[in-house]
């Protein structure tokens, strides 16, 4: 049992100094361990150049939809739907890039619908 041994010291001040030193050393070591883990992390995102970070904001704010060519819209789609689609796309930083809006034929299996979706051209 621990109690059967005599302690190294019984001076509370020395105990405090030793213990606080050890606690700080261990936790400071943990800080460096955490930094090391972050450093070697192969999955972390590479920092983007500042210019690229600002671009989408400027583009969304300054590029009015009117400056882009009007999208080809199939009959039966009202303007509110077009506005909602344009806003959703603009939110991803592609303002003014809606070229055409078509109603897809949902007939057929989900596999077919998924295949159609996959065939959309992507940037």
């Amino acid at each position: 049992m621990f109690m059967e041994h005599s302690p190294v010291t019984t001076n509370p001040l020395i105990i405090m100094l030793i213990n606080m030193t050890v606690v700080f050393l261990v936790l400071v070591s943990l800080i460096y361990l955490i930094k090391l883990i972050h450093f070697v992390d192969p999955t972390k995102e590479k920092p983007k150049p500042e210019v690229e970070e600002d671009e989408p904001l400027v583009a969304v704010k300054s590029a009015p939809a009117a400056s882009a060519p009007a999208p080809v819209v199939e009959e039966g789609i009202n303007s509110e739907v077009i506005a909602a689609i344009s806003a959703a796309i603009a939110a991803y930083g592609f303002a003014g890039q809606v070229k055409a809006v078509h109603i897809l034929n949902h007939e057929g299996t989900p596999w077919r619908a998924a295949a159609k979706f996959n065939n959309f051209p992507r940037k």
Partner: protein
Amino acid sequence: MEALNAFSVSLQAVWNDSGFSAFTMGNGIMILVGLLLLYMAFVKEFEPLLLGPIAFGCILANFPNTGFFGEEMNVMKAINYGITYEIFPPLIFLGIGAMTDFSPLLARPSTLLLGAAAQIGVFVALGGAMLVGFNVHEAAAIGIIGGADGPTSIYLSTKLAPHLLGAIAVAAYSYMSLVPLIQPPIMKLMTTQAEREIVMKELRQVTKFERVVFPIVSTIFISLLLPPIAALLGCLMLGNLFRESGVTDRLSDTAQNALINIVTIFLGTGTGMTMSAESFLRTDTLLIIGLGLVAFMGGTAGGLIFGKIMCKFTGGAINPLIGSAGVSAVPMAARVSQLVGMKSKPGNYLLMHAMGPNVAGVIGTAVAAGTMLAMLK
């Protein structure tokens, strides 16, 4: 006549075997203490999950002639083994690990320093305990109350001063439940309005890689350095690994729900069972409760002072209020930082920032316990 005689002897035997024949004033007082703790747990809702079983265990421990701690094995004796052989505290840590998100700590590792600074309360109380006549082992066990970490307090007192276990556990859990009352006045006293209003920068995103590797690497490092706390820290990190791995959801779910609930019942009841009249009704108990408060206040102040230092060094990037969360008491102490911050500046959300020092406090208290075990053995 013979039947009457047999009846009388039987009645006498029943009376002699009953608890009433050996009931003492001390037992009565301790049952009242148990009832008071039950009131605090269930009516006032002060840590009811722990104080409830502790209170009921205290009542059970003060019934004479139960034979709970006699020669024969029984359920209460088995529960007591879980405490005596330090089985329950690491299992509680397993559940705590599964419930804890280390992301705020990983995003801003410098907050580990706040968890270290808050341990000053442990050593202030240790010095105070030695001044009033406790030996160094008892003083170390009393001091760890300042870490505001129930399982670690029980773990250390079982190893260094098992005869004080009941008083230390009650003091630790009582003060943990009183965090929202004890900390805010100290926080307001030690910080300026301008400091309390500091809005901290949003934390960076922590990757899954970091969250998975940290518990493994820290367990290897700390367990090699301080083997006496390998069980505590290993279980904490294993629970966290269950949570973060993403492929052990069932284990994580069990650790943070069923297992921790079962062990909490056993740990609480077993701790309460140590509160017999002869071991609890002593002036030492009052001293321990008083020293526990000193430890707790010292820890809060230590964290705040270091928070202020970090605030100065970072040019006002750190709100010193998160320093008080360096005492463990997860997540209550972090919530108190959030509440005091919100009162000073509505809309200032400090909770996630305070979770960093809060979980650092759990590691810091375990390290302090391990260091004391290494020094005092």
